[in-house]
């Protein structure tokens, strides 16, 4: 019995390896090392971000379907509630089928996935979820500049997206906004999970100025923000703060990251 299980696991992991090789790094973009000033906090100290690889596209329904076929424990009916709430993959017809909408959304970002599921997906690709700092750093790029901090039109893109209801069908990942690094859809497609999504210092009532007030966002005045123009970025931090790891949301997807070889060697 134990022997059978071991054989099964070995077979299963070798098939995972194939998947990992298929997705590979070809669909990833290189994000160069650098620094950025996060919007929170009164300090204007830049935060360093080591160079890393980031998926060019958010994970699609088709890609996630392939994953759950090979990892049945992440299928709709089999996933444990501890790892995903009851809305997990609710836009799919069944465990191994997207259903009638497949033609419209196969290439669209997968949504209604929990942090645990996203983490497992990335790990099974030999990757990981990006950190908040990595994600925010990569998302600061406009079409033409790696750092669009002072570009008001760039912020307007965020505002317009945040204030529009979700479309009935999310567009294919390749059709969304492509930034300086060749990464698509960081702004204007879906919210995305990050590895440390719950590290933001936003409290449940965003107006408090308690003991840790300097690091909290006073949502009304945003008085501690370093860059008031990027007011809309508060919404990403607020959104992440409202999540727990088993939550699934109808416009929350994810993409994977990978440390560079240099980083891995340093560890």
């Amino acid at each position, binding site marked *: 019995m134990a022997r059978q299980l071991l054989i099964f*696991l*070995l077979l*299963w*992991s*070798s098939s*995972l*390896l194939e998947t990992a090789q298929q997705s590979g790094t070809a669909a990833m973009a290189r994000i160069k090392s650098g620094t950025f000033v996060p919007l929170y906090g009164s300090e204007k100290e830049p935060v360093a971000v080591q160079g890393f690889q980031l998926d060019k596209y958010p994970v699609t329904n088709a890609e996630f379907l392939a994953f759950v076929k090979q*990892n049945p*424990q992440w299928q709709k009916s089999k996933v*444990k*509630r*501890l*790892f995903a*709430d009851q*809305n997990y993959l*609710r836009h799919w017809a069944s465990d191994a089928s997207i259903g009638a909408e497949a033609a419209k959304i196969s290439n669209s970002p997968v949504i209604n996935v929990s942090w*645990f599921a996203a983490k*497992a997906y990335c*790990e*099974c690709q*030999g990757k990981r979820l990006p950190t908040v700092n990595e994600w925010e750093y990569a998302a600061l790029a406009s079409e033409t500049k790696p750092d669009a901090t002072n570009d008001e039109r760039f*912020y*307007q893109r965020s*505002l*317009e997206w*945040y*204030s*529009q*209801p*979700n479309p009935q069908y999310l567009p294919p990942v390749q059709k969304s906004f492509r930034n300086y690094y060749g990464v698509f859809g960081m702004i204007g497609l879906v*919210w995305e999970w990050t590895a440390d999504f719950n590290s933001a210092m*936003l*409290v*449940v*009532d*965003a*107006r*408090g100025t308690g003991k840790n007030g300097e690091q909290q*966002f006073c*949502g*009304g005045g*945003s008085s501690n923000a370093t860059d*008031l123009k990027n*007011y*809309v970025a*508060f*919404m990403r*931090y*607020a*959104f992440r*703060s*409202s*999540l*727990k790891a088993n*939550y*699934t*949301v*109808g*416009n*929350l997807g994810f993409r994977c990251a990978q440390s560079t070889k240099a980083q891995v060697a340093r560890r």
Partner: protein
Amino acid sequence: MKRSSITRKLQLLAIAIYCAGILGACSTQTTEAEKALTAGTSSSKELPVIEAELTAPPLVPAPITRKHPAKVVVRLEVTEVVQKLADGVDYTFWTFGGSVPGKFIRIRQNDEVEFHLMNHPDSKNPHNIDLHAVTGPGGGAASTFTAPGHETVFSFKALNPGLYVYHCATAPVGMHIANGMYGLILVEPEEGLPKVDKEYYVMQGDFYTKGGFGDAGLQPFDMGKALDENPTYVVFNGSVGALNGDNALTAKTGETVRLFVGNGGPNLVSSFHVIGEIFDKVYSEGGSKTNLNVQTTLVPAGGSAITEFKADVPGTYILVDHSIFRAFNKGALGMLKVEGPEYKDIYSGQIMDKVYLPEGATIQEMPLAKAPTAPVAANKDQRLALGKAVFVQNCQACHQAEGQGIKGAFPPLAKSDYLNADVDRSIGVIAHGLEGQIKVNGELYNSTMPKLKLTDEEIANVMTFILNNWGNKGGEVTTQQVAKAKASNKH
């Protein structure tokens, strides 16, 4: 190569075992939601449980008739919806219950409220709620931070009677409020409010769109305008015209009308007024103290007022923010249509319209009307005619009617050698004045010619007139020549 492949497989195996491990450890967990509901229902068993009736504006739930406290379950759903802000103008409103303002909540002092906040799965953002009727951290906001597709529950006891605003307090707070996330909760005093015939729910809010007032299409939020507190729209009940025409509030003559008035802001305070009515009674700031016979009542952002009046005579009464440009130019207009018999002793209507002839009537001029522009000469004859008028008004007193001057005091213009020798110099004298001694026709003059306030056109005309009279050399002076001569003959 082979070795690294095996290592890789072992790594993945480790991950697989890890996954299997965490999966096995979760079978006896209950969800957070289940816990919350159990906690919510286990308290205050002695109180009867009532599901709150919530109403969309401008309606309010029926007055509370029970004489005892209850446990009231309020279920409020957050949705993000595109709705009309003005004709042809759409906006993405974030709402409590699908409308702006949100659903009206009516409870009684000392009720215990079990509050459920549901954030619709299609929402893009997390939301929470701060009810000013709550005594406790964040007014409930600290307990209701809700991701899309989730529901949070908390309960509170309504200690104070009054009309209270509720609103979303998720960062960025200003933007959530500016998108319409506010409403009213009435905590009736234990003895209830006095009976009236009609009750309505009216709430003002200011909106900030990228385009100007009336610019068509789905308008995005404008952060800059919001920070500058310069709204594109100021409206009652979420859109221009929400209370106009077919949507007007109604009453019959003789009925008493109570308006629950709120102001969501986020920025402006309201000077709430009903044109043609006097509020018999105002519960100032939605509190317990009443003021009588009020024309306009101030409703702070995040505040309220209850106004009451009797609809004495029929007609259409206009609700406005009496900060009046907001009313007629930004949308803060509503209507109350009162139907029923006339009461001529209170208001006669128009009795007469006749022509009015005030005593000593003269031609009236609008104070801001522009003075008529001076006539411009089209030819030499007109120039001579106009120039004569200038001469009579400005020059004749000193130089005399025939240009003969006054010996020893004012030099002659007639047959003047000084004048005819250099016309440009003479233009300069008119334009700039002249002080000091000059010799004209052999006589010395030492007096002051004042600088005259004449236009170039007037100088050209008067100069032409002088040159063509009293034996002078003739010719025509143009405006262009005046301009040039003025510049080169400064005195």
